[in-house]
């Protein structure tokens, strides 16, 4: 496989707060690579570094294509733009060097495809969240990019737009585009992902999406999180308000529940999860 971008020992810190630690991975040509992980894991920072919008604090990033054409779909496309979608996309296309005639056709095609044509008289600042996100998607694919970077791209999109985006990604891939994306809720991209990495608190590990071991999610209360983190059986913890979410393999769940009760904690609910991609390669 041909390499397109390679990150070696990338670290990033903002004002002494460390975001990424020694992250290394490779994006291959014509491949779909996903970075998975929870909120605040550092996914967006990695994407911005790959896009060249941020400099890493240390480490090396190598681009194997000169003048690499990058399309970038941010997690939150700016919502206060004073242009209509058509005006904005026209400016973006022109500054990117797309010839006028081709640009007009491309804009009309994508506006129709993402059902934005009927909103084209409104300024972006007056559009709904989903429609603003669609403008964010179109600006990145106006000029077929060599690398398309998508940061949580389906956030706020309706089902039709999600399917359309998936179709566009498949088409771009057929044309040779490499895809780098992040998500943590949607499952729409799962079928097309070829390489996945799991990011947790700035550390990266390769994830195997093919393994599908059943996992139990235990929602507990009144328990000391630091004690729970010492239990090897717990794959991952998350704090949600006063609840602590514990992810454990099915065979260990009874033992963990018993320990929770021993520590005078209360159990809110227990759920079996059928996909485990974020846990089977937990960072160690």
């Amino acid at each position: 496989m041909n390499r397109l971008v390679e990150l070696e020992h990338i670290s990033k810190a903002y004002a002494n707060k460390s975001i990424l630690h020694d992250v290394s991975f490779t994006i291959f040509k014509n491949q779909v690579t996903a970075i998975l992980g929870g909120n605040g894991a550092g996914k967006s920072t990695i994407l911005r570094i790959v896009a060249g919008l941020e400099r890493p604090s240390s480490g090396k990033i190598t681009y194997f294509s000169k003048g690499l054409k990058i399309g970038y779909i941010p997690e939150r496309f700016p919502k206060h733009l004073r242009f209509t979608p058509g005006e904005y996309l026209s400016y973006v296309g022109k500054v990117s060097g797309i010839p006028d005639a081709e640009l007009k056709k491309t804009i009309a095609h994508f506006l129709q495809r993402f059902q934005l044509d009927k909103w084209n008289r409104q300024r972006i600042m007056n559009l709904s969240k989903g429609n603003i996100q669609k403008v964010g998607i179109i600006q990145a694919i106006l000029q077929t990019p060599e690398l398309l970077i998508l940061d949580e791209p389906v956030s706020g999109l309706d089902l039709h737009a999600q399917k359309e985006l998936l179709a566009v990604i498949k088409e771009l891939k057929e044309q040779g585009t490499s895809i780098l994306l992040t998500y943590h809720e949607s499952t729409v991209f799962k079928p097309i992902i070829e390489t996945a990495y799991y990011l947790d608190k700035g550390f990266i590990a390769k994830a195997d999406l093919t393994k599908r071991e059943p996992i139990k999610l235990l929602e507990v209360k009144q328990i000391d999180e630091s004690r729970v983190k010492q239990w090897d059986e717990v794959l991952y913890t998350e704090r949600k308000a006063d609840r602590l979410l514990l992810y454990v393999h099915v065979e260990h769940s009874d033992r963990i529940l018993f320990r929770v009760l021993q520590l005078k904690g209360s159990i809110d609910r227990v759920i079996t999860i059928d996909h485990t991609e974020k846990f089977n390669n937990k960072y160690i």
Partner: protein
Amino acid sequence: MKELIKYSLHDYIRSHRYFPPVSAFFILVFVYYTYTSNPVIDSYALTAVTLYVISAWICISVLALDPPVQKQLMLLHVKGSNRYYIAKFISVWLISLILAVYAFLYPVVFNLFNEPVTFTIGVISFMNHMLLATLGISVASIFSNSLMKNLINSYGGLALLIVISIAALGIYDVLPASFKNIVWVIPPAIGTQQSLTNWSGESILHLSIVPFIWVIIYSLILLYVFLRLVKRF
């Protein structure tokens, strides 16, 4: 570049942020000429210094126009920060050009001078407007939100430096001899005014052009420093 300038101007007009600085300039020029009749060189020197302040104001607001994510996207599309920022500077410069034309023509059209405006005085005075506008743009760039994230540092720092630069001659007079050279680092907003007020206006050969050249050099240095620094952010 042309499209980037159009984008920048289009966005600025739609934002209506031009209204405070532009209307302030129109009103100030109108007020300056309320009393007639006025000396040509001194009056133009005063409107040029006013344009220096207004251009700085416009520049800092134009550079703050794009939200951070939008700025990142445009930088990605134009492939590099130099083109993006130079387009912004040209946009501000074009707005300043319109203001300079107004400042130049208003007293001529309404016959508010006590003498005719000769070709030489006209050209030098108009050039002085544009030079000080460029200086205002370059000074504002250093204090823009591209380099300073804190609004108080950004607007406060710019306002303070502009006041210092206008009061540079007074500062020079009160400084002890060993500190007088410090004035060279202050933006030379007032140097050309001093040169113009000492000029008879008869021949360009009698005009000291060093302050004008220093404004050009100073502005270019600041713009270069800005373009270098902004790549690190």
